[in-house]
Every structure is written in structure tokens, then in C-alpha cells.
């Protein structure tokens, strides 16, 4: 048994390191995250307990091992007076839960292969046009909810799609090709998400000590053997991180299923339950499906933990020469790059380019757009519903950023500096929203705040979702700022703070006059990145955001209006205009952070 005096002394030691400022810095983030992250997610768990999981797993709507539909159908059709062989790729359905799972696996694997190939070419070879290819490869990362998927559908539509038009009307071949339904969703997600893998693997490859590969070559490995035995294994941390993120993003993606009108996914199913929830009741199926999403996401996250903590091993020795091995590409390689990689990247970047076309073209119902107009762009200010959504998103985002900075700076400081147990736990709590599907948070918020907080301003049914959206944004986008601040703190030697304390400054004075000025640029960069992703936030926005409907005084954010306008006449043009607005904000921030502040962050990654 520990003696009482011993206990008192331990307490005295702990209290020495914990002054009021630090206690506040620890308590505030913990309280916020408990209330606005842990409690809602725990509620999802509680609600789903009411539902017998056997009901869901035996229902063929959810799990069905007899595939429905055929992956490819080929038939003869007469279309606009001509005969065509229609090749339609649509995929088979295995029930809602299995569809989500299988789709996410396929997307992750395909995106990984594409990402690795592009990363390897970019990281190891130089060739004319490399910079352009790098920009193209990053383009799909510009977030444009719904409308990029809409452009992809436009490419693969068998009636007025670009590919079928080229084959049928330009080349006059008797074929029309369409990718739709489940397959459409998969191809959209692959095109959208592969740059995440590319970026993570690329940065891993850049960080491989050149001497590692040189040593292998020195021992006789070359070409594919070298790649397989040294380069790829050393890039695994990046690949693992990227793949987990893609898996999670694919699971919770709602935009592609909505655009392809493919309801046989968990994410769409949860959304549908939400669209009925304006009455104040949310089907418990939403909770059960959320729980499954959560478990899958966490499994992916935990699965990669091993690799991500091993991050250092990609950069064993930092001594000596450190320039990544970049070689000139020979003719054979150049042909591969220009004939295969360039078209691929152009193709993947096309949706973002297509957003601009949609926004600026008079009409794009036919395979080709025609006319130029600024009318659609003007609509985002003129249409009161749309303009209000922009104002709403701005308001929520600014409010969220204030919270994010407060929580992010406090928690990162505690994690980086405080010598108390449980900082690891806080660290996990602060970074976990990266891996938590937004839909799960939305469902949790609904249950938690319509029950315990019924009638308070936090109740989205009575008062509307405004406050909850700001809070949800602040939790979901916290990791970007928290990680930037943490990175900044690691650059600030602790002696700089100790020198201040030593000269008689209190903890608060030291924080204000030494720490914050030194990490100001990190705070600002992190806040800007968080802001950008608040503005384009989708999954919470389209679920909670619509709970008060779309009236004159609506509280919906940009993403909800984008979803809502997608099916209206002329709507896609306005949605695209909003997409242009979001892309512009994102580009502005990227330039500010990278060029003006000279900060380097992986925008998406673990």
C-alpha cells in the first residue's frame, strides 16, 4: 500500500507542473471534445443497441450474397435513328452494407495502384513537363462537392456522354459505352481519391535515403526488383496512411452515390433517413449503419497505426548528401509517360476543369458545351437562397475557426509540453476526427442534441442546425490546425520558454509574448486550411444542414444547397459556379500558405 505521505508528495509534484493556465489548456479541449465528439458518438452506440444487428445482417437489402444485376450488359439499341451496340458497365449489388465495403476495397486498391505509379514516376524521374503533370495530379484534390462527380457522369453517360459521343459521332463507330450505377460511383471515387495516395507515397519516396537504393543497386538489384524490394517497402508508411484515408473517404462519400442516383450504399441510406428526419425522428437504422461505418473506419485507422508509427524508418540516416534520386527519362520511358500517364492525369483532372466549363457555359446538355456567360456566376449572389448559403457557410466557418484555434492551440500545447499522463489520450482525441466519418458525427449530433438538449439552442429541430454545424465543423476540421500548431511547437525549443520563466515571466505571459509570436505563422496556416475545409464540408452539411428546410431564412450551408440545386432545372450551372467559388478559395489559401508563409503541410493524410 502506498503511504499517505507518499501520495501527498506525488500530488505536490503533479501540482508543481500543473499551473492554472495549463489546467485551463487541458480542461477546455477535453470538455469541448467530450461534449461535441465523444458524447454524440457514444449516443450512436446506445441507439444502435436498440436495434438487433441480426435483423440487418439477415435482411437481403443490407447483406445479400446472391449478386443482383450483371456487371456488364451488351445489347443492340436504336438511338436517335441509328443502331448501336450498347456496352453498359453497372456492377452487381450485394446489399447495401456489402456494396459499401466492396466498393471501398476496389476503390482503395485501384487508387493505390494509380497513386503508386504516378508517385514513382514523379519522385524518381525528370522529363519535360514534369511540373505540369504534378499540378494535374493534385488537381482532383480541389474539393467541389457533387459537381465534379456530375462532370464524371457526363463523361461516361451513354446518351450525351463525351466518350460515347467521340466513339459514336466523331469516329462513327456503332458503339455507345456507359458506366453507371455502382460502377459509376467506383470510377468517380477512384478518379477523385487517387491523388491522396499519390501525395502520401510521393512524400515517402522523396524521404527515402538515397543511399538505401544505391546500396541495393550496388548489391545488384535493379529495375522492378529494386522497386519491389527496397523502394516500395520503404514507401509503405505513406501508402498505408493514404490507403486508410481513401478507404474511409470512399465509405462515407455521399456525393458520387447521389450524382449516380445509386442508393444501395450505406452513406446514401443514412442520408435518406436524414432527409425524412425534419419531423424530429431519425430511424434507428441510421444509427446502426453509422456504427458499422465507424467500426470500419476505426479498423482502417488502427490497421495502419503500425506503419505510421514506423514513419521514421523511411528516413534512417539523415547524414551526408540528401537529394532524392532523380533521373532523366529515356525514350521508352518518355513514351510511357506521355502516352499513358499524361492522358490519365488529364482525365483525372478533367472534372475540376469541367466545373469551370459548367459554370461558364450557357448550356452543356449536349455532349459539348456551348456559349459563354457569366450569368451562372452572377446567380450565386443574385439568388437569395444560394447567397444565403454562402453567408451561412462563412458564418459557421468563422465561428468554427475561432473554436478550432482555441482548442487546437491549447491541446497542442498540452500535448507538446505538459509532463502529465493522459496527453497521449488527448492527442488521439484531437487527431481522430480525420478518421471519423462525418455521417457518424451527424447522426450522433442528431440523437444527442435532440434528446438531452431538447429545446435549447443546440436542438437542431427547434432552433435549426446553425450552432450545431459550427460546432461539428470545429470538431471535424480541428486536426488540420492542431497538427500545424503541434509542428510549430516542435520547432520552438523548450529552452526559449524556460528562459522566459527563468527571468520571472509567468506561464501566461510566456505563452503570450514568446510562444504565440513564434508559432503565429503555424496557427494562421492551420486555421486557413481548416477554414477551407469548413467551407466545403459536405457530410454534416447535407444531413444536419437541411433540418430546417430550404426556405427564405434557411440555415443550410453551401454543400446542402449544392445537393439541392443539382436536380433543379439549370441547377448544375449554379452548383458549378459555387464549385468555382470553393476552388478559388482553396487555391488562394494554398498559395498563401505555401508561397507566402512557406509552410509545407500534407493537406490530406494521417
Amino acid at each position, binding site marked *: 500500500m502506498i503511504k499517505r505521505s507518499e501520495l501527498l508528495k506525488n500530488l*505536490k*509534484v503533479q501540482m*508543481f507542473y500543473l*499551473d492554472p493556465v495549463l489546467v485551463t489548456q487541458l480542461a477546455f479541449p477535453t470538455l469541448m471534445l467530450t461534449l461535441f465528439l465523444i458524447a454524440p458518438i457514444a449516443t450512436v452506440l446506445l441507439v444502435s443497441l436498440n436495434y438487433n444487428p441480426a435483423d440487418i445482417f439477415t435482411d437481403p437489402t443490407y447483406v445479400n450474397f446472391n449478386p443482383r444485376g450483371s456487371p456488364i450488359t451488351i445489347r443492340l439499341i436504336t438511338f436517335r435513328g441509328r443502331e448501336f451496340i450498347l456496352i453498359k458497365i453497372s456492377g452487381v449489388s450485394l446489399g447495401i452494407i456489402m456494396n459499401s465495403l466492396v466498393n471501398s476495397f476496389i476503390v482503395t486498391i485501384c487508387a493505390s495502384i494509380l497513386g503508386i505509379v504516378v508517385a514513382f514516376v514523379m519522385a524518381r524521374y525528370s522529363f519535360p513537363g514534369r511540373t505540369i503533370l504534378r499540378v494535374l495530379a493534385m488537381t482532383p484534390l480541389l474539393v467541389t462537392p457533387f459537381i465534379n462527380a456530375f462532370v464524371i457522369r457526363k463523361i461516361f453517360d451513354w446518351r450525351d456522354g463525351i466518350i460515347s459521343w467521340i466513339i459514336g459521332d466523331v469516329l462513327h463507330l456503332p458503339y455507345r459505352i456507359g458506366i453507371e450505377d455502382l460502377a459509376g460511383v467506383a470510377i468517380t471515387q477512384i478518379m477523385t481519391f487517387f491523388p491522396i495516395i499519390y501525395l502520401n507515397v510521393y512524400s515517402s519516396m522523396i524521404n527515402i535515403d538515397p543511399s538505401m537504393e544505391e546500396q541495393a543497386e550496388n548489391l545488384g538489384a535493379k529495375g522492378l526488383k529494386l522497386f519491389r524490394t527496397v523502394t516500395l517497402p520503404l514507401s509503405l508508411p505513406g501508402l498505408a496512411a493514404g490507403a486508410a484515408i481513401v478507404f474511409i473517404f470512399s465509405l462515407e462519400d455521399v456525393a458520387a452515390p447521389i450524382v449516380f442516383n445509386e442508393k444501395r450504399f450505406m452513406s446514401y441510406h443514412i442520408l435518406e433517413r436524414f432527409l425524412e428526419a425534419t419531423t424530429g425522428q431519425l430511424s434507428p437504422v441510421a444509427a446502426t449503419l453509422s456504427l458499422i461505418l465507424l467500426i470500419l473506419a476505426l479498423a482502417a485507422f488502427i490497421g495502419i497505426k503500425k506503419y505510421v508509427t514506423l514513419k521514421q524508418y523511411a528516413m534512417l540516416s539523415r547524414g551526408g548528401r540528401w537529394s532524392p534520386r532523380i533521373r532523366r527519362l529515356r525514350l521508352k520511358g518518355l513514351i510511357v509517360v506521355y502516352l499513358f500517364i499524361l492522358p490519365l492525369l488529364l482525365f483525372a483532372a478533367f472534372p475540376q476543369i469541367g466545373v469551370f466549363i459548367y459554370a461558364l457555359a450557357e448550356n452543356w446538355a449536349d455532349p459539348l458545351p456551348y456559349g459563354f456567360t457569366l450569368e451562372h456566376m452572377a446567380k450565386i449572389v443574385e439568388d437569395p437562397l444560394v447567397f444565403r448559403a454562402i453567408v451561412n457557410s462563412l458564418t459557421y466557418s468563422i465561428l468554427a475557426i475561432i473554436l478550432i484555434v482555441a482548442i487546437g492551440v491549447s491541446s497542442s500545447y498540452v500535448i507538446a509540453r505538459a509532463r502529465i499522463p493522459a496527453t497521449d489520450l488527448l492527442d488521439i482525441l484531437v487527431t481522430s476526427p480525420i478518421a471519423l466519418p462525418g455521417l457518424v458525427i451527424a447522426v450522433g449530433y442528431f440523437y444527442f442534441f435532440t434528446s438531452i438538449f431538447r429545446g435549447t439552442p443546440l436542438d437542431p429541430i427547434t432552433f435549426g442546425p446553425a450552432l450545431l454545424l459550427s460546432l461539428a465543423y470545429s470538431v471535424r476540421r480541428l486536426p488540420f490546425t492542431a497538427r500545424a500548431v503541434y509542428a510549430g511547437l516542435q520547432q520552438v*525549443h523548450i*529552452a*526559449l520558454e*524556460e*528562459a*522566459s*520563466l*527563468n*527571468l*520571472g*515571466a*509567468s506561464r501566461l*505571459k510566456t505563452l503570450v*509574448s*514568446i510562444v504565440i*509570436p*513564434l508559432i503565429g505563422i503555424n496557427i494562421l496556416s492551420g486555421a486557413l486550411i481548416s477554414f477551407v475545409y469548413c467551407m466545403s464540408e459536405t457530410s454534416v452539411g447535407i444531413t444536419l444542414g437541411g433540418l430546417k428546410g430550404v426556405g427564405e431564412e434557411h440555415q443550410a450551408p453551401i454543400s446542402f444547397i449544392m445537393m439541392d440545386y443539382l436536380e433543379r432545372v439549370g441547377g448544375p450551372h449554379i452548383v458549378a459556379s459555387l464549385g468555382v467559388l470553393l476552388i478559388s478559395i482553396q487555391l488562394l489559401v494554398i498559395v498563401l500558405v505555401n508561397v507566402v508563409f512557406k509552410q509545407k503541410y500534407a493537406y490530406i493524410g494521417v
Partner: protein
Amino acid sequence: MTRVTLKEVSKKFGKVVAVDKASIEVDHGEFFTLLGPSGCGKTTTLRIIAGFEIPDEGRVIFDEEDVTFKKPYERGCAMVFQNYALWPHMTVYDNVAYGLKIRKVPKEEIKKRVKEVLDLVGLTGLENRYPLQLSGGQQQRVALARALVIEPKVLLLDEPLSNLDAKLRLRMREEIRKIQRDLNITTIYVTHDQEEAMSISDRVAIMRRGRIVQVGRPSEIYMNPRNLFVATFIGRSTALRGSIEYIQGRRVKMRVNEKLTITGKLAEDYELSVGDKAIAIMHPEDFTLKVEGESNIIEGVVELTMFLGPFTQLRINVGDQNMIAYIDPEYEVKTGTRIRLAIKEEDVIIFPLIGWEEFEVETIT
């Protein structure tokens, strides 16, 4: 002016014992150095005095006041950090004035005192520079000025010279010593450089594995190392191992091998009996080519010569062991020749070999 007392201070980090029952007393205006190899706990001890760590056991006392649980900002001591810890977003002036601003000293007086202290450290005219625009030596002076300007009770210096080049290190060493003398501030200095410690300090505490093994004036420690560790850590030393053949009071004769015996004084606090394993510690500079008084004569074969400037270093094989000796560089020796050296009995200290891991002794040449 403050007297600093540590009473049985211990500190563990997890399972690692950083400081083990360390007790020291530093007098008013004394220049006191904690000396030891890296990882011996000297910096932790200094940080305990500054208040960045609190000890698991023991007390820290300034004059009569127990400050063990006082926050760093309540202690009134000023520290110069190993990496200087100058704030990069503040000018030299703002860095130095910081402590005075905290103390709410009137603006005019801050100006006056900053100017004075910058004069003292020889940085007049650089007030508006930023730390990154200064050389290493200048940064070091700013760090010193920043600490001195608040007229601290105790000045703490954590390896302040380790980031400077050799020449600058020697000059700053003298300057620090002179300023400390002029201002008469109680100063506690941490270093792993034994020459630096010996030359700058009033008293030195030698630490090893968290413990203080010997405290004393530099010359005292050099002449009378209390144990084998101190003997080999302070100055350059060379050793020969053997067994005790004869004892007369504190005078002992040790047989090294069939042809060679060495007579020396038995180290203080130790006892030996005939037949015990022992080790004789000698300073290489104490060997001479002339025999004077009660001297040992050592004969051996020169294996290697190295010209080091003020002297030539020889590696001499005396049968089964090697030893190092310094001789006058004017005397030319070729490798492979036999040589006869003398060393006075009083310059040989003999320690028992028991209790010292063999590998540690092996590292002494």
C-alpha cells in the same frame, strides 16, 4: 548574494536515476562548477536549482529559504542556456530588457541598465540586431547579458561555451570569470570539459552516475583524486596494473610484471593488503628523463611517438602493458628504441582495482 544549498537531492526519470542524493553548498559569490561526463546528472541538478524540475527527494535552499517547490519565475535566479535560447522574434535590446519589463522596472531605468550590461559584455551598438544576425560568440554574450541584467541571486550557466569554437571558448571563459568576479554573483556552472572547469572555478563538484563523488578546489582534486574515476577523469592520466608486494604506512609497492615494480602513495580513504590487485595512476607530464629523489625507474620500448607541440607523446610498452608519457619535444626518440623514464613516488597514486569494472580501467591508457 545568495548561498545555495542542496540537501540530499534525488531525481528519477522513469527508472533512470538522474540525480542520486546530491548535496552541495555553494557560498556567497562563489564560482562553483558541476563537472562530469554526459548523462551524469549535472544538467538535471542545475535545472532543479532553476526550478524546471522538482526533486523526488531532498531540498533546495537559497540562503535560509526553502525554494524546492517554488516556480522557476519565483526564484530570482537567471540561467544561460546551452543553446542560448534567444528569442528570435525580439531584438537584442528586447531580449535583454525582457526580465526588467517583467519586473515592471521604469522605462528610463530599463534603458540605462540594458546599456550598462551591453557595455559590460561588449555588445554596445548591436541593440537593434536580431539574434540570427549575430555570430555565435555575440549570441552567447546576449544570453549572458540577459541573465545578468536582472541582477540575479544566482547565475546558472549550462555548458554555455560548448557551441563556440576553441579560440572563442578560451576568451569567453576568461570574460565570464572576470565579470563574475566583478559582480560577485553566486554562480553555478555546468560543463563536461574538465580543463574548463579547473580553470574557471573556485570549487568543482565531480559527478558520476547521479552522484557527487568529490568536491574541492581544482588543485586539490588534481593532486588528490578521491577515487579511480576522478583520477582518470581529471587531466590526462596513464595507468599500470599489478598486485601489491609491499606496504609501509601509506607507501605501497606494486609489482607490474617480472621486471617492473612501481612505488607510490595509497589513495586516501582506501586500504590494501599484500597480494591485492591494484592500479597505479600517473600523469604523463610527470615523467622525466632524469632521475631525481625517490623515483621509480620504468624501462620500456617506444611503440609510437606523436608530436603535440609543447611535448612529444610516447606510447611505451613495458612488457604486458602500455603506458603514455610526455617528454620534451627537443629530445628525439625513434619508435622501437628502448627508453628509461623516471617518475617520483609522490606522483604515483595507487588504487585498489576491486569494485571497478575491468572495462572502465581498460579505457585508461
